[in-house]
C-alpha cells in the first residue's frame, strides 16, 4: 500500500482539481438553479461516509471477536473519518437547505438520523480517548451499533416522508440527466479514494502509537 500511496494521492489530487471545474461547467437544475451544485460534493461525502462506516463496522467486529490489533487501528481511523465526512455532509446540507427549504436546519427524519449517526461516532472517539483501559472494546461495540444504524439512515427518507428528497432521486437522475449522474459518481469516486488515502495515513498513525506503547512497556521492564 505504501508504494501505491503517492500515485493514488496524485490521482485523487487531480480528481479534486477537475471536479470543481466540471461542477462549475455543469448545467443548472431547473428549480433550484445554482444552489443545486452543492449536491455533487454533498452526495459524494455521504458515499465516503458509507465506506468509512462499513470499514468501522467490519473492523470493530473483527477486533471484538478476534482481538486483532490491526482491525482496531482500522476501526479507530475510520470512526474519525465518519465524523469528518459527517460534519461536512451536515454542513453542506444546511447550506443547501437554506436556499432550497428556506431554513438553515430542519428536524427532518434523514437530517435528524444522520446527526445521531455522526454523534454515535463522535461518542466512539470520546470513549476511546477518555474511557481508560479497555475502552477499545467498548468503542468497538459502539462502532458495530453505529454501522447497524446506517441502513436506517439511508431508508429513513422512504419510510418517513418529510422534506428531504427520497432515495429514488439518484435512479431518476441517471435516466433524466446522465451528465449530472456521471459527475456525481465521479465526485463520489474521488471522495472514496480520498477516504482510502486518509484511512492509510490514520492507520499508520495508530500503528506508530501502538509501537510507541510497546516501546514504553519494554522500557519499563
Amino acid at each position, binding site marked *: 500500500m505504501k508504494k501505491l500511496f503517492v500515485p493514488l494521492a496524485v490521482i485523487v489530487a487531480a480528481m479534486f482539481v477537475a471536479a470543481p471545474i466540471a461542477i462549475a461547467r455543469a448545467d443548472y437544475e431547473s428549480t433550484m438553479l445554482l444552489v443545486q451544485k452543492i449536491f455533487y*460534493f454533498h452526495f459524494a461525502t455521504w458515499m465516503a461516509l458509507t465506506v468509512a462506516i462499513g470499514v468501522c463496522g467490519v473492523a470493530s467486529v473483527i477486533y471484538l471477536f478476534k482481538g486483532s490489533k490491526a482491525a482496531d487501528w482500522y476501526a479507530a481511523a475510520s470512526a474519525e473519518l465518519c465524523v469528518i465526512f459527517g460534519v*461536512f455532509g451536515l454542513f*453542506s446540507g444546511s447550506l443547501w437547505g437554506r436556499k432550497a427549504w428556506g431554513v438553515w436546519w430542519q428536524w427532518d427524519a434523514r437530517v435528524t438520523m444522520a446527526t445521531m449517526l455522526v454523534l454515535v461516532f463522535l461518542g466512539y472517539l470520546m470513549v476511546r480517548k477518555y474511557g481508560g483501559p479497555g475502552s477499545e472494546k467498548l468503542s468497538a461495540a459502539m462502532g458495530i451499533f453505529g454501522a447497524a444504524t446506517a441502513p436506517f439512515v439511508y431508508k429513513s427518507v422512504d419510510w418517513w416522508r418529510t422534506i428531504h428528497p427520497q432515495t429514488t432521486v439518484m435512479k431518476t437522475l441517471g435516466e433524466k440527466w446522465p451528465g449530472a449522474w456521471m459527475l456525481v459518481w465521479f465526485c463520489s469516486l474521488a471522495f472514496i479514494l480520498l477516504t482510502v488515502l*486518509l484511512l492509510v*495515513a490514520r492507520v499508520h*498513525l495508530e500503528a*506508530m*502509537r501502538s509501537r510507541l506503547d510497546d*516501546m514504553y512497556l519494554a522500557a519499563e521492564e
Partner: protein
Amino acid sequence: MISSLIVAVLQQIPEGFERVTGGQQVEQIPAAPLVVASYAFFLLLMVFYLWTIWRRIGKVETDMRALEQRQGQKR
C-alpha cells in the same frame, strides 16, 4: 435630532401586514455565497484534518526518539 430621525423611520414602517402589489417582489436568497461556503469549508476541513494527522505523527515520532535516547543513555 436623533429622536426626530427615529420617529421618521418608525413612521415609514407600515402597521400590520400588507400584501405585495405590482412587480415581482419575491424574497431572494443569494445562492453563490452558499455554494462557495460549502466548497471552501470542505477545503479548509481537509487541510485542517491533514494538518492534525501530520502533527500527531510528528508528536509520536518525537516521543519515540526521546524514548530511544533515554534508553541509549541508560545503557
